[in-house]
């Protein structure tokens, strides 16, 4: 499997989903998984998959001793593994910027030279493909499609790509032609395509012109929360709290959240709105909240990570995700796990599988305001959504998703 993010060092939903799915598949048994990520930190959970860090894969020969390798990267990779990979270098990449071990350094984030990193990742994939033994290649999201294609060309093994998002979602329709090119190339070369929702599946078929027969939807799931996360301590304000959690970008529809807040606050002053996260539209949103005259009840606590996310959810009475286009959207499921009633847009992939949430159109500010008011003012509504929501989300587990992916593998390998 090629991925870009892996917990605990994640930037968005991609890492969580890759992790959950891999673990879910492992739970179904009889499977060895190798997971390649750009830059491991050493604290990843390695119990169910072998993790290879792209930053530790040599692409150019360096004559180094075992001890030296041990001292340099022993924390994240076994030196023997390094030497095994070193034997499989297939071309001279000394002209590239390599380090003392002959490896290319990856940031593992989304830097400005992202396209260059994607290319480097694909070069590295050639080495891994030659060194490892496997039956199938699985690429998570467009960043790793080139690597998947490369591995397929080297080994002739079938390629499955996993579409967690498309550029149509990220850009509200104004696609970047380069990104589109990479995505489409990946889809055409793939033997099978897995999408995270029916919504994404339609995009892949309609916008990228892919044969519907090779596109299957496998909805995401959630990992059950641990006890200490569920019981995380937090001070609650005496007002009701409505929370938006995510990147403050065009895709997430933050302006609709602000407009909803303005509508609700006009009549019900006993509510606070929180927009947690960061993004390119943050300043604009602060400005908009001020212009609507609700800044005293509208808060921007910034980017939340790890435990803070759960503290934030614990303190909330309503969770809102007014995404304009969301391939799946795992965060409402997390909110439901914490017992927070959720309002999501119909344009989100998770709306396809969730029942005990309020679904509205992302632009229907009136309907969202109404729902917020209703949950804050009618205890029965809050309790019903809370209890049924928790029960529902407990049924959405990764092993079911993993089972579906395995079925797809079998089909691709002609075993089914």
């Amino acid at each position, binding site marked *: 499997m090629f991925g870009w993010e892996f917990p605990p060092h994640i930037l968005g939903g991609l890492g969580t989903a890759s992790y959950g799915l891999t673990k879910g598949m492992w739970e179904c048994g009889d499977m060895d998984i190798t997971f390649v990520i750009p830059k491991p930190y050493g604290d990843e959970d390695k119990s169910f998959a072998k993790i290879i860090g792209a930053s530790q894969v040599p692409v150019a020969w360096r004559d180094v001793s075992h001890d030296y390798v041990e001292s340099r990267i022993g924390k994240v990779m076994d030196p023997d593994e390094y030497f095994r990979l070193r034997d499989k270098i297939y071309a001279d990449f000394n002209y590239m910027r390599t380090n003392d071990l002959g490896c290319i350094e990856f940031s593992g984030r989304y830097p400005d030279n992202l396209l260059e990193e994607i290319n480097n990742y694909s070069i590295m994939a050639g080495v891994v493909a030659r060194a490892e033994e496997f039956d199938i290649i699985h690429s998570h999201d467009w960043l790793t499609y080139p690597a998947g294609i490369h591995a397929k060309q080297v080994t002739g093994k079938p390629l499955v790509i996993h579409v967690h998002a498309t550029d149509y979602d990220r850009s509200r329709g104004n696609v970047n032609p380069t990104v589109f090119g990479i995505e489409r190339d990946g889809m055409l070369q793939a033997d099978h395509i897995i999408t995270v929702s029916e919504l994404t599946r339609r995009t892949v078929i309609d916008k990228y012109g892919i044969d519907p027969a090779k596109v299957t939807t496998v909805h995401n799931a959630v990992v059950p929360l641990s006890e200490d996360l569920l019981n995380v301590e937090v001070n609650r304000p005496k007002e009701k709290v409505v929370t938006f959690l995510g990147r403050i970008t065009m895709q997430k529809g933050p302006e609709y959240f602000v407009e909803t807040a303005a509508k609700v606050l006009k*009549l019900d002053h006993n509510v606070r709105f929180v927009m947690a996260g960061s993004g390119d539209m943050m300043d604009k949103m602060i400005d908009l909240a001020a212009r609507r005259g609700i800044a005293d009840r509208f808060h921007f606590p910034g980017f939340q990570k790890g435990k803070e996310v759960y503290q934030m959810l614990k303190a909330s009475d309503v969770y809102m995700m007014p995404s304009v286009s969301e391939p799946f959207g795992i965060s409402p499921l997390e909110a439901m796990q914490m017992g927070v009633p959720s309002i999501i847009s119909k344009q989100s992939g998770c709306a396809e599988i969730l029942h005990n949430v309020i679904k509205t159109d992302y632009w229907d500010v009136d309907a969202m305001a109404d729902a917020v008011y209703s949950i804050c003012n009618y205890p029965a*509504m809050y309790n019903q959504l809370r209890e049924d929501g928790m029960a529902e989300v407990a049924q959405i587990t990764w092993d079911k998703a993993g089972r579906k992916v395995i079925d797809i593998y079998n089909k691709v390998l002609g075993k089914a």
Partner: protein
Amino acid sequence: MKAICFYFQIHQPFRLKRYRFFDIGNDHYYYDDFANDDIITRIAHKSYIPAAESLLRMIEASGRKFKCAISVSGVALEQIEVYVPELLDLLKKLVATGCVEILAETYAHSLSSLADPEEFANQVKVHDDKVNELFGVRPKVLRNTELIYCDDLAPQILAMGYKGVITEGAKHILGWKSPNYVYAAASAPKLKMLLKNDKLSDDITFRFSNTNWSEYPLTADKYIGWIADTPDEEQIFNLFMTMEAFGELQNRDSGIFQFLEALPRFAAERGIEFITPSEAVSKIKAVAELGVPFPMSWADEARDTSAWLGNQLQKEAFDKLYSVAERVRLCDDRRLKQDWYYLQASDHFFYMSTKHQADGEIHSLYSPYDSPYQAFTNYMNVLADFIVRVEEQYPLSIENEELNSLLTTIRNQAREIETLNKEVSSMRLNIEHYNEEHALREKVAEPEAKPAPKKPRAKKEIKADTSVSKPKKASKPRPAKTKQTPEKEK
């Protein structure tokens, strides 16, 4: 002799329009007129009218041997009057044949029997009056909303003057017993119960055009055959269904109307007659008493009240609604009373059901909302506004009992004032009589001399008096009498 007892239900609620929380306190009109007009007109033309016409033909063709009962909720009657009066004419025609009985039910198609006995009695009475006004008959048998019934209700129903009640033949109540007999209520043995034959009723309502059903296609011959082949002791077959079954649930081209119209002929061949519920309860003896400890109904798989009061949302909305019942009854604002009825329709609660399995389908089929949560939000917003209006009349800060006693005092005072007024006017009459007699006497004694100055004085006094109390009532009879008395004496 075996008999078929048909009963058809007609009901449509007043659906609510999209009502946002910022409308609370500003907008007091709650209904989606367009949808209501559209739905009842469509269903009337697709189903109610053709079905009523079929019934009329069946009655005529069978020489008035075909009989059935129809129940129309009060809110549906109102909609029919406004939107499809031609259906009302047809119903009147049906009732006029004498072969169609109209049943009693709650005016608002409400669940009041589960919450508020006074409201229940009141609504049934209002519905009876409406039926009497439109059709000129008074119902004798009660069908509670959605066939809800339990032991607690029986004594009240009997006390309200009904001889029989129509309800569900739920399996968990009947056990090994058959619904094809007349039963008596355990808590009020004089009240007879007619139980719906689930299997035979649903064969028509839900399965008739289902090609996957092993008995498809269902013919009138076969259907009557099933009834005829039952043991001889089984006397009555209660086929209770919504009238929408004809033309709406079962499409016109499935042949449902032909099936219906063919029934009397085959029934006559097999010696089966038709009977109305009131004939059934008066003619047929009850075989046993039947106890129903918990409310049952004809809805959903569970056949209980969980379709309307199954989850927290429904219970909250229901409790909130009936928390103001007493106050609304104290009010005499007509619009408020009207909204009170419309908001009680069981359908509003039906839309809030969160059942997701087989039953969920039927809930979402009827619901104008996308989700139960939306239904709840909308309803609660409307209810919030309604309660604000009730409070404007009688603030919640005053206890119900206190308010009650204040109101009785006011009523008593009004009564007292009335009696005093009567006394005053009769006294006044006496004075006038006295004056007139006096004047006449004087006339006799001194013609043309004294009466002139005396009369105006008397008038003035009276006028001053009447302006204090009731000017119209007191002043009117006076001139009449004054005219009469001299004439008589002449």
